[in-house]
């Protein structure tokens, strides 16, 4: 009897603790701090959009959007100035198209070799090497373009200019090659072994298995890797600045000097444009365009990954 009376206060104490779920302030503070860190990413995006929009709007108060989007002359610094962005977009497209033409076939063939044909030993050496090469800074590719690719092109095509889109396209292609190879390899390896075994059991050769079974099954991942590489090529800066020059130009050939959107941004920022001026604002408008294009490509690649993924268990 008296023992329960003695114990009661202790017991009720514990019960109160459990039932009321006391807030642990330390725990709460830590969790809030962590959540705050996670919010930084949202804030970053918001800041990017706010800054680009703000400067963009003040730009469009001086220049009509129609002139910017459809104009074919980009002369922002000299009088008479003209702000048609198409030459810069064209330059970017030219380099990206050339780079894709080089990187996609080579990258895909490498991915097929690595995932379908290479022995374990070859694979475990080539893959890390490719990953290492993917980490080479882009300025190194710029060096490669100027000191190796352009002189080589000059001996083959004597009429080519010192700065030209061809050289830029080649080095950007080489640059995104490891990315396509490793990402596509991952996608092809995710295709279950049973599909291959089924194809072989029906008498298909390795070529038929690869092109008619494995590739279609891993296509979403392969396409996503292409899009990511293209988006990377569009945003690529240093190599094209060094290789392709600074002449906004809507040339149809790869042999002339052009200017990409990214190269224009570098050119202006090296010249130390005064804040608030029209030249300074063009930086943000061009960057906004770049941001929107790459964002669309990235979202598209994620969408393809999710929408067209063949799920195997």
């Amino acid at each position: 009897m008296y023992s329960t009376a003695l114990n009661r206060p202790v017991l009720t104490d514990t019960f109160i603790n459990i039932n009321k779920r006391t807030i642990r302030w330390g725990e709460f503070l830590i969790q809030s701090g962590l959540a705050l860190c996670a919010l930084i990413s949202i804030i970053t995006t918001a800041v990017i959009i706010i800054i680009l929009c703000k400067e963009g709007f003040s730009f469009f108060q001086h220049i009509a959007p129609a002139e910017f989007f459809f104009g074919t002359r980009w002369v922002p610094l000299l009088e008479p100035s003209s702000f048609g962005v198409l030459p810069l977009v064209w330059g970017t497209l030219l380099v990206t198209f050339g780079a894709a033409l080089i990187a996609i076939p080579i990258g895909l063939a490498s991915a097929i070799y690595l995932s379908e044909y290479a022995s374990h030993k070859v694979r475990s050496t080539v893959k890390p090497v490719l990953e290492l090469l993917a980490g080479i800074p882009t300025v190194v590719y710029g060096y490669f373009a100027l000191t190796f690719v352009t002189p080589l092109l000059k001996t083959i095509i004597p009429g080519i200019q010192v700065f030209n889109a061809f050289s830029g396209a080649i080095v950007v292609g080489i640059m995104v090659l490891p990315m396509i190879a490793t990402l596509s390899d991952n996608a092809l390896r995710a295709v279950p072994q049973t599909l291959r075994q089924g194809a072989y059991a029906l008498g298909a050769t390795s070529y038929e298995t690869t092109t008619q079974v494995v590739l279609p099954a891993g296509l979403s991942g392969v396409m996503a890797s292409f899009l990511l590489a293209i988006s990377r090529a569009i945003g690529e800066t240093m190599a094209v600045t060094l290789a392709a020059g600074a002449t906004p130009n809507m040339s149809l050939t790869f042999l002339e000097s052009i200017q990409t959107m990214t190269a224009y941004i570098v050119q202006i920022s090296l010249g130390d444009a005064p804040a608030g001026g029209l030249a300074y604002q063009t930086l943000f408008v061009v960057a906004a365009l770049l941001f929107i294009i790459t964002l669309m490509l990235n979202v598209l690649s994620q969408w393809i990954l999710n929408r067209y993924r063949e799920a195997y268990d």
Partner: protein
Amino acid sequence: MNQSSDNALNTSDRHLQRRHRKASLFSSFCALITFMGVALLALLLYQVCVDGIKWLDIQFLTSFPSRFPARAGILSALVGTLWLISLIALIAIPIGVATALYLEEFSKKNRLNRLIELNISNLAGVPSIVYGIIGLALFVRGLNLERSLISGALTMSLLILPVIIIASREAIKTVPMSIRHAAFALGATRWQTAWAHVLPASFPGILTGVILALSRAIGETAPLIMIGGLTYVAFLPDGPMDSFTAMPIQIYNWVARPQHEFHQLAASAIIVLLAVLLIMNAAAIVIRHKTER
């Protein structure tokens, strides 16, 4: 009759042979392309080494940039890069790992957190030069931090945060649920579990990701040029508010000059930069290898 069935066998035989020949051609073609690609990249590195070995000596590592190739060196760029990396590590690692911990260990799967996840993967794809412009407008002009080390470090931190977060989340995901359950069963709170059990268990993976992210920051040129890391700096920075130069900027500066000697200097600087990157990547691979066992 016998003749015709023989013929049919022959044609189907030939057909089969053709299919097999096609398959073996295809496999050799793919192998050839792969090794050509690797050889192309190897050629790039070889070219850099041949060009750069000439100027690469102690004097090159301990001199300031100069108009005369024979006297030029990368001391200020090297020190600038070390400063930059230390600052970036101080800023980006805590925030990145905290975000990853929050998303994996604390957050509920509600709309806000899905938005954060989607947002991070999109931020990872934003071109580096856009971060440079944001850094210019926000840190250099907006917060009046001038063209200083801290502006560069903050900009680069924004750039590599998504990389650190994604890598850390992958590492945290590999920690088995049973470890968390055991900790909870012993009465540990969420934070105690995360701090004392999840974090140590995922540490090697996080470290690998952090090293790879930092090595990306070392090589990034465009954002630093936007921030305006000076190209001619003949002094060493004393604090985070000083102006600076860094290895990739110095390389860009030398490559952009027309004289052949400066191209060779650029190649020497590239060798130093690649050596730093290689050491960091090797460390990451060793760590990964050790933990896989």
